[in-house]
């Protein structure tokens, strides 16, 4: 993922994914800067998430957990999710993928916000549940690309047909797995 992000350094309006988004880059005001906000911010969210589910870190360095957590919440709520919502409106693959990406960004924002407010209210169970959901959606950055490789290898579909499928396949199974896990925890 870091390698994918590094493609976008230095700033270039016609590189990698943007090569096929020239219509948006040229016609939609702010598409280009907002796209870059998403790319540069989301990579930190993805990295930050890995440390936050470690109970060792939480027990030994609770302050570090809180600080990284604050960064995660800030970046998702103010940078990654709003920019994701905006570029989701112009997603490849037509209406199906647009609905998917816009829904994804709204849920992402909501889960992250809930995770934050619940810890402010000292509700650790709720905090943990919402942060797991939030990260399940963050992790869709990886699962979406992973599914793409598999689908292309197996079926060689047209590029935008793949895109419509992975738009949904990227995050819904992630969320279902987390919900199933939370449901099992609840029963215990």
């Amino acid at each position, binding site marked *: 993922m870091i390698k994918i992000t590094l493609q976008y350094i230095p700033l270039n309006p016609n590189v990698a994914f943007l090569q096929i988004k020239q*219509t948006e880059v040229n016609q939609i005001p702010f598409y280009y800067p907002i796209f870059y906000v998403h790319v540069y911010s989301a990579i930190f969210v993805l990295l930050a998430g890995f440390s936050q589910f470690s109970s060792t870190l939480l027990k030994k360095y609770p302050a570090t957990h809180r600080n990284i957590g604050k960064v995660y919440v800030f970046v998702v709520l103010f940078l990654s999710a709003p920019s994701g919502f905006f570029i989701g409106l112009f997603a490849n693959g037509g209406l199906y993928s647009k609905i998917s990406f816009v829904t994804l960004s709204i849920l992402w924002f909501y889960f992250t916000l809930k995770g934050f407010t619940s810890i402010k209210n000292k509700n650790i169970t709720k905090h943990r549940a919402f942060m797991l959901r939030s990260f399940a959606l963050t992790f869709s950055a990886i699962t979406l*690309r992973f599914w793409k490789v598999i689908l292309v290898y197996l079926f060689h579909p047209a590029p935008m047909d793949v895109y419509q499928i992975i738009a949904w396949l990227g995050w819904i199974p992630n969320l279902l797995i987390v919900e199933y896990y939370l449901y099992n925890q609840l029963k215990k």
Partner: protein
Amino acid sequence: MKKLFCLLLSIFLFSCNSKEKNLAKNNADNSMPKEIRTDLYGSWVGDFTVLERDTTREAKEKYRNKINIVIKKITATEVTGQSIVAGNSRPLKGFMRRTGNTFYFTLKEPGDDKNDGVFTFEIQKDTLLVGTWTAFNAKKEVTKRKFELTKKEFKYDPNVMLEDVDSYIDFENPKEKLITDTEDQEDTEEGEDSTSTKKAEPYMETVYRAASEKIFNINSSTQKLKESDVKNLKKIDLEILRNTIFARHGLTFKTKTIRQFFDNVQWYVPIATNVDDQLTAVEKENIVLLKRFEKYAEDNYDSFGR
């Protein structure tokens, strides 16, 4: 008196001599540009097929290419023309002989290219050009090719399209793919020999890229393409759409991958090795767009990313 006579005689002889010289000069001027059989001038187009190939080597040269032999000028002593095939355009020089109603030609390429050779052919009934080509270099992979050509003039028509009769498959770039399917095995009828119950071994299968139906509907020369028009196309579709522009302008293609798509196209006449100055504004823009999408498809289609 004698002296005077001598002088007159020498003057007379001298003047005669210069007259003769002038006459000879005039004759030379007349015979130089006398062109004959201008009705045979123009493009003769058809298949250029292997006759002799060194089979001990890996087959690199295509079995069949589309060739255009242009006859430019025929005089009693000299014939000039051009051969255009497989991305090469070579000047031809030679002569024509006539036996009965048939014209026999021997035309040589310059010889400074490793693919140069000599064409020998006859034109039958003024309509069919039949003959062979022999490479100068006898150690070349393909040393002899044959051809049967008919007259077909090149004309740029932006409206011609690929015909939806062939499926466009890239046979030049096969890929090996591992197949581990075992489903087929279970369908075998009862009572067959014991091999049917054995576990299927994974095997390699050769797969080819195939173009989609879109290449028959999108005209890359007349419609200004938008990103949304080409976004859902695979790389092979994009390549074909872009090269159809060049095919309409009669570009002779250097790569076998592209030749296999256009050599069978009825309207395609190779005429030049570079047509860049012929392209229309719309075509130029479409080429840039298609090229960009080809690059994106190349870099991203089957890799981890979007």
